């Protein structure tokens, strides 16, 4: 089967691990992001690991006028089309408190930008009658917390969007996997205090691949975050609102 993945936000370490994993299986990868030099290095790496094709593609969540060209590039590939979304930005909550206009960029990067892209891609996937969308949301979207509620709200919006998209694509033979990673060892979490049970990007990529194969709907990675979040979600608001976690 001829498979192609568009990977949005391909310079992140989770995306890199995922791109390598699907390359090893011979899929084609279109690596989308802003740092073209870095993407070119990753594309070479994916080719040497077995990708059918690997190309860098310019993508900026905040510049939707570039999206149509990417969709066109995808259309040129025969067979199954898939998308994996790793984009998102998380300014410190304190920075947002000082400059509320940062909310717009956070929401665009983490939710509306990729949603708009997927909205443009959906008809093509429906026409091909299959394919999978992997959307990376976050445990931060399960409940608003003092530390990062703007980022959390954007990811919650994205998760809700993915749930609706799943409803839509399933009808056409496609599938959507929502991924909620806990703490992952990335540049974003490097050196942050209070990290525990940190997963490697490779482990997350492995979990995502498994979820794609088994057509899982919503996964937490590593799995135990489902239970951690279950507890956090069930703390009564009366208590939660006074907590600092």
């Amino acid at each position, binding site marked *: 089967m001829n498979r192609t993945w568009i990977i949005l936000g391909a310079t992140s370490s989770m995306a890199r691990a995922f791109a390598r994993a699907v390359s090893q299986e011979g899929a084609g990868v279109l690596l989308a992001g802003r740092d073209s*030099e870095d993407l070119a290095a990753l594309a070479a790496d994916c080719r040497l690991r077995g990708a059918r094709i690997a190309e860098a593609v310019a993508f900026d969540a905040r510049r939707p006028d570039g999206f149509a060209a990417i969709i066109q590039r995808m259309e040129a590939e025969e067979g199954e089309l898939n998308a994996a979304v790793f984009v998102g930005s998380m300014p410190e909550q304190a920075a947002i408190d000082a400059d509320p206009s940062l909310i717009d960029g956070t929401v665009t990067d983490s939710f509306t930008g990729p949603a708009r892209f997927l909205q443009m891609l959906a008809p093509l996937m429906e026409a091909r009658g299959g394919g999978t969308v992997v959307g990376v949301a976050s445990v931060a979207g399960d409940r608003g917390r003092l530390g990062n509620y703007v980022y959390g709200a954007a990811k919650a919006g994205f998760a809700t969007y993915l749930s609706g998209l799943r409803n839509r694509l399933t009808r056409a033979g496609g599938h959507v996997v929502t991924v909620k990673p806990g703490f992952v060892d990335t540049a974003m979490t490097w050196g942050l205090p209070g990290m525990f049970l940190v997963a490697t990007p490779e482990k997350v990529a492995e979990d995502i691949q498994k979820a794609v194969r088994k057509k899982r709907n919503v996964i937490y990675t590593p799995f135990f975050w489902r239970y951690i979040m279950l507890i956090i979600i069930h703390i009564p608001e009366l208590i939660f609102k006074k907590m600092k976690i």
Partner: protein
Amino acid sequence: MLWKSADYSGWGRVLQAKGEIARPERQAALAALLDDGLLPAMGMRRSYGDAALNSDGRAVDMTRLDRMLGFDPETGILDVEAGARIGEIAAAFGPKGWLPAVMPGTGFATVGGCIGQDVHGKNHHHAGSFCEHVVSLTLRTAKGVVEVTPEKTPALFRATAGGLGQTGVILSARLRLLPCKGDVMVVTERRMADWEEFIAHLDTSRATYTVGWIDATAKGAALGRGVLEEGETGSGLMPQRIKRRKVPLDAPNFALSSPIVRMFNGAYYRRVPEKGRTVVRPISDFFFPLDKIHDWNRLYGKRGFHQFQCVVPLDQAPALRDMLGEIAGSGLASPLAVIKRMGPGRAGYLSFPMEGYTLAVDFPDRAAARELIKHMQARATEVGGRIYFAKDSLARPEEIPAMYPELDLWRKEVTKADPEGRLATDLVRRLKLRVAK
């Protein structure tokens, strides 16, 4: 965040450091970091001692700059970022009929780390050292990014190969891979009854890959007994076992006590039938036997451990046998003990290899073991041998010039490449490598 405050150590966990570490994921981020001044680089910190430590200072972790950038099947030359792991390269290229020409005993070692220690593999007697297969490398020195090759910049190349990261940060390298038949190994294992038989077989082995496991607890007539392994690459199908095991906790101290090690070694020796056997293994099992168990260094418990590795000239085999006798008599060794015959191949001023025999033995960290290791280091020096910086945490500065006669040539190049001494590591300071006498 850019900087992580960390307590960290080398593989042996005896020597520790506290400092700030950055781990850039893109070349642009690394370049920006080094614009503020050079920093010592570290790979996977598989060096046992303090080669990759910088106490109370800063360092840059290269492991996320790990991409393969290009390969030319005509020449077999692979262009690769310095943080890429050897095992990953082998896994990607073995099935296509290519392997890194030299592979150390762990696939977790990075290209940068293999250059920094000019590592050797089980084929050293044929293939020489790692850096003899480095066609060129890009190095960030105090003067900026330079292309270093053995032909155009021989002195800088020789100072960088095995140069412990002191000439600059290696960004990427072009490696000449070696053609292989496929990614399985045909391995012949034979019992060696004693030292004489072992040396005789090491001397006459014609195999591409040759290594010996030695029972460092066997005494008397059995002194030097072990298992000789000879391997050739082959083609075929071998189910790739990906199950890795982890060591979840630091083991208690008695885990490697002398009766247990003796029992284990006896069983390990007899595992191979008396008449020997030939088996087929995945390449990773042959080259990186310990990588299947993640964090196996925790088996030594919290106190950590040392590896003593020396090489002595060919005519000093009896001295090596005497050292082994002392080790066996002490009852301090762990099951991990390896013997190899080395060829003359070395690429740098401070490269470890010399034509002769090399012995490597692990010891849990105890006062008696430290004393024994220091004593053997002195012995190795006396007989014209040397110890390996990748394994050392106990050597003394005054021993080094005799072991490494090209030290002053190295110093000269290092001073040019890093005049401010920003790249110094704990090992370099401990052994006063950069300070002239």
